[in-house]
């Protein structure tokens, strides 16, 4: 197994506030890791630290054993929270997905762009949205399009920040089925921020439970026990509503 992301003693300060304290974890090829914790626990900050969007106060993060700046940006696909997108921007779905290929906004789409975009939109069940303006997409549609934008560059690492925010249960289920299907075919490592530990039990093979510091790490069945959940959330919520099946604990 190759270390895809190596996080060593990472602390991140946001203003006067220590958002992350001494986090250390190794993520390996093919892992589907769910980063779980309550609101404001530093989940998104950890993802942003991996992306180099926030400076580290201490520690280091290596990707494929190299500094982030040595890694081609195309190796990382990122699905940010929906609120970062300007829905009023004059664009159609194809434009947004193509921006994932070129890391730039497209003027005129080439035939090759069209082929790549059509292929990935079909993969996420959104080929009919290609010429639809972004402002007319529903939350679920936009999330699928964002997933397509991240996947179109065939990333080695996929980072998802609360991908189910703002979409209904059906849309959420559909999105995870797309993701599971993709992971069966591609050798992609996934890190997903979520506050929903039931989702993590079903889809992730590893969990990072954090509340500013790392509380637990491991397969969902081990990391999401009552003691750890209480330490992270202060309660165990509905953790026992859906028993953890063996299939997810790969």
């Amino acid at each position, binding site marked *: 197994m190759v270390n895809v992301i190596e996080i060593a003693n990472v602390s991140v300060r946001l203003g006067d506030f220590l958002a992350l304290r001494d986090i250390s974890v190794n993520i390996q090829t093919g892992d589907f890791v769910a980063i779980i914790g309550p609101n404001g626990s530093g989940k998104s900050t950890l993802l942003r630290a991996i992306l180099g969007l926030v400076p580290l106060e201490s520690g280091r993060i290596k990707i494929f054993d190299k500094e982030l700046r040595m890694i081609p940006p195309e190796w990382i696909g*990122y699905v940010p929270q929906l609120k*970062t*997108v300007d829905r009023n921007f*004059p664009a159609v779905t194809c434009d947004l997905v193509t921006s994932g290929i*070129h*890391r730039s*906004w*497209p*003027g*005129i789409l080439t035939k090759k762009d069209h082929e790549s975009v059509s292929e990935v939109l079909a993969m996420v069940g959104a080929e009919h949205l290609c010429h639809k303006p972004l402002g007319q997409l529903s939350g679920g549609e936009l999330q699928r399009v964002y997933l397509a934008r991240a996947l179109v560059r065939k990333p080695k690492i996929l980072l998802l920040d609360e991908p189910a925010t703002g979409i209904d249960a059906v849309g959420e289920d559909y999105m995870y089925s797309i993701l599971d299907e993709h992971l069966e075919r591609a050798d992609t490592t996934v890190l997903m921020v979520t506050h929903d530990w039931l989702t993590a039990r079903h889809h992730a093979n590893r969990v990072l439970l954090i509340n500013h510091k790392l509380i637990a790490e491991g397969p969902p069945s081990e990391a999401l026990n009552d003691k750890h959940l209480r330490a992270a959330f202060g309660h165990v919520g509905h953790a026992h509503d859906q028993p953890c099946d063996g299939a997810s604990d790969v």
Partner: protein
Amino acid sequence: MFEALQYGFMQRALIAGLLTAVAASYYGVFVVQRGMSFLGNGLAHATFGGVALALLLNQEPLWVAVPFTVLVAVLITYVRDRTGLAPDTVIGIFFALSMALGIVFISRIQTYTTDAFHYLFGSILGVTDTDIRAAVFILFLILITLRLWGRWAYATIDREAALADRIPVKFDDYLLSVLIALTIVVSAKIVGIVLISAFLVIPAASARLVSRRFLGMTVVSVMIGVVTVIIGLMCSFQFDLPSGASIILVQALIFTVCLLISMVVGARASLKSKSAARSKS
């Protein structure tokens, strides 16, 4: 109408007007989509401060107004970036500061000068060969930065994704502010400081109403900018009106037409989707 072009001053005004129209309406699409319309106002008033200082020092206004306005643009971007203050708050502070300095400088000028009025309200009579050379330089800057259009647009729609893709977004913020500042200073002689922010915003806003894609918006914005400058300057000559006001009135007319087109298109699309929903049920 074409007799106007026999006059040297009119030729200069038209050349400078067209070049600055291309620049203003090109950068205008980023100003509109980034919600920075107030920046145009702030930098226009910085230009006033710079022009007033030049008049006080008895220097060519352009050579003082350019560094003065660029400095203000950089300071606005710096303070906005380094503090949690909202952009309009930062712009408002520098807007008032530049205006206050301009008023102080003007009050110290002993002799009457028409230059200040040319800059305030725009004048086709005031355009010099220096202004044309400056406008050509602005166009040259657009051409050499044309390849940055895609990454500026990318950071405009999703700043977070652009940062994650290691686009130098902060550097681009400064660059764009400086280029917009230069465009405003050079356009001020034609359009006037009072109306320059509209010159920056109206073509882009009109284009936004009738465009589905950002490339289309950019092209339409530049076309509107060019056409309205030609018509506006002709009206200015024909009816002896201030050039800036003439151009902006023509642009406002085009905006109204675009607004009507977008409303009609929107109403038709809404009717179509309603009838499609009815036929499904």
